């Protein structure tokens, strides 16, 4: 265990934000879960007790009749906002006094940094470069993420859970989002920051980042495994596999979604449903491709003269 190396990575000035973000995220997940749980308990209670449902103020927080339903922004909200501003200021000042913003050698195009890393918030995308060609990782993927985020309100037809934390009422939406945000976005950043060392090789935390490390890795293409050699064959085979993934995956998701979210399913139009399917399957495709690469050393699934996937 190379503690020094670990400390070097953790304490690198530009890695501090991501180091700080992980416990922060954990804390807010806890905060959200606590409230979601309280609301879920309340919902269950109200669902079972129609009378109570009529009278209850329907929040997990205490309430007594006579208490104002609305409060003045001044001072009740502003005092919190000001307090938050002060605390953020304090944090920022202390951080700035104690930790210097990194400044390395003057830019030198002739001396490549190894590893050359993007800012931490883009490391997820950089990590994607391992699994996909640059045009997918660098262009298609970010575009899909942005579009995907944007379409969320239009494909989430579940009217429940608007304005309060809940898990039980929105299992599918929250599950999918957590999968995208935590598993795909944050942990990719984590891997890019802490695991990827010189040569963008995989170093477990605590392993020394040895610049001379050589590893033997042969990456094959999926068609090769099946002994397909002709270009047409490869193209067709890949198209079949990818198409197959979308077909089979689509069917599986359909089967799951129809059973577990019948109401949403019912509410959705065909367009909404197919957009949902496309994004969901693409998202699911990512870890599958990653696992294929990391565990089975498979580089491409679909090879065409124009692009490779």
């Amino acid at each position: 265990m190379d503690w020094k190396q670990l400390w070097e990575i953790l304490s690198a000035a530009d890695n501090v934000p991501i180091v700080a973000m992980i416990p922060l995220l954990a804390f807010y997940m806890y905060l959200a879960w606590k409230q979601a749980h309280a609301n879920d308990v309340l919902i269950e209670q109200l669902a079972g007790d129609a009378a109570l449902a009529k009278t209850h103020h329907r929040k997990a927080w205490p309430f007594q009749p006579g208490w104002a339903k609305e409060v003045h922004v001044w001072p009740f909200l502003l005092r919190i906002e000001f307090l938050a501003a002060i605390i953020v200021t304090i944090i920022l000042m202390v951080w700035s006094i104690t930790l210097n913003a990194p400044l390395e050698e003057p830019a030198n195009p002739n001396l490549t940094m190894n590893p050359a890393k993007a800012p931490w918030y883009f490391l997820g995308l950089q990590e994607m470069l391992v699994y996909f060609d640059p045009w997918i990782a660098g262009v298609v993927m970010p575009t899909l993420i942005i579009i995907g985020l944007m379409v969320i309100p239009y494909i989430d037809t579940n009217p429940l859970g608007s304005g309060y934390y809940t898990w039980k009422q929105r299992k599918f939406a929250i599950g999918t989002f957590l999968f995208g945000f935590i598993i795909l976005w944050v942990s990719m950043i984590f891997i890019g920051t802490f695991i990827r060392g010189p040569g963008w090789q995989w170093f477990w935390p605590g392993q020394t980042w040895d610049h001379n490390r050589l590893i033997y890795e042969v990456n094959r293409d999926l068609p090769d495994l099946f002994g397909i050699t002709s270009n047409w064959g490869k193209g067709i085979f890949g198209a079949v596999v990818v198409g197959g993934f979308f077909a089979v995956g689509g069917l599986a998701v359909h089967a799951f979604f129809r059973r577990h979210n019948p109401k949403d399913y019912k509410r959705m139009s065909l367009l909404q449903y197919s957009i949902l399917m496309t994004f969901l399957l693409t998202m699911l495709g990512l870890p599958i491709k990653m696992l294929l690469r990391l565990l089975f050393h498979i580089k491409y699934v679909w090879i065409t003269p124009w692009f490779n996937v």
Partner: protein
Amino acid sequence: MKTRTWITGTCLPAALGLALLAGCGKKESAEEQPPAAPASAPAAAPIDPATAAVVVGVVKLDGAAPKAAKIDMSQDPACKGANVAENVVVSDGHLANVFVYVKEGLGNRAFDVPKEAIKLDQSGCRYHPHVMGVVAGQTISIINSDPTTHNIHPTPKDNREWNESQPPKAAALEKSFAREEIMLPVKCNQHPWMRMFVNVSKSPFFAVTGPDGKFEIKGLPPGDYTIAFVHEKFGEQTQKVTLAAKDSKTVDAMFKP
């Protein structure tokens, strides 16, 4: 930068837990070395003439003295001196021109530089005396009694070198040497046989043996001393002697050719 890194180190991992901090304790800086006691011994007491001791002795040469080489002085008709080399002067087994001095035992005593100058005469194309001792800084007054020009050219190791010409009847040259140096050769380039040795000593406790090989060093305070005998050809010998107050000890030396 160190302190700032440590401040950083203490603030940042607050979220990660204080455990890390345990390893981050600031190392005690190397302890201040105790001030080194100055090596100088307390200043030596002044010499009390009442208790001063004397060292006397005779320096001999064991075996037959090498035959003194003849010097051909014919190149300068003005040279009318004894034309025998002076590097070994022995009479009856007694060795002359040995410089005897107190080499060790005086500690860091400082001595006044004698005011009077020591005379170095050039006559008969020879130096008189052939071996001499001076206290560092003491003036040597060099005169030329010959009807020819000499030049005086000391070739020291630790002192400054100089080379000056002295025509007949010129005024005396006043020179001195600042640093201790034993057997500092002096020569005249115009008369290559002319050569003598100056011994620059820190203390005034030295003597040069006469033709009878005898010497005497007076006025030494009681103590343990190392007496050194130096001869231009036979090198240096040392002997230890312990002197009580008003002692008079004999220290003889024997050189081998």
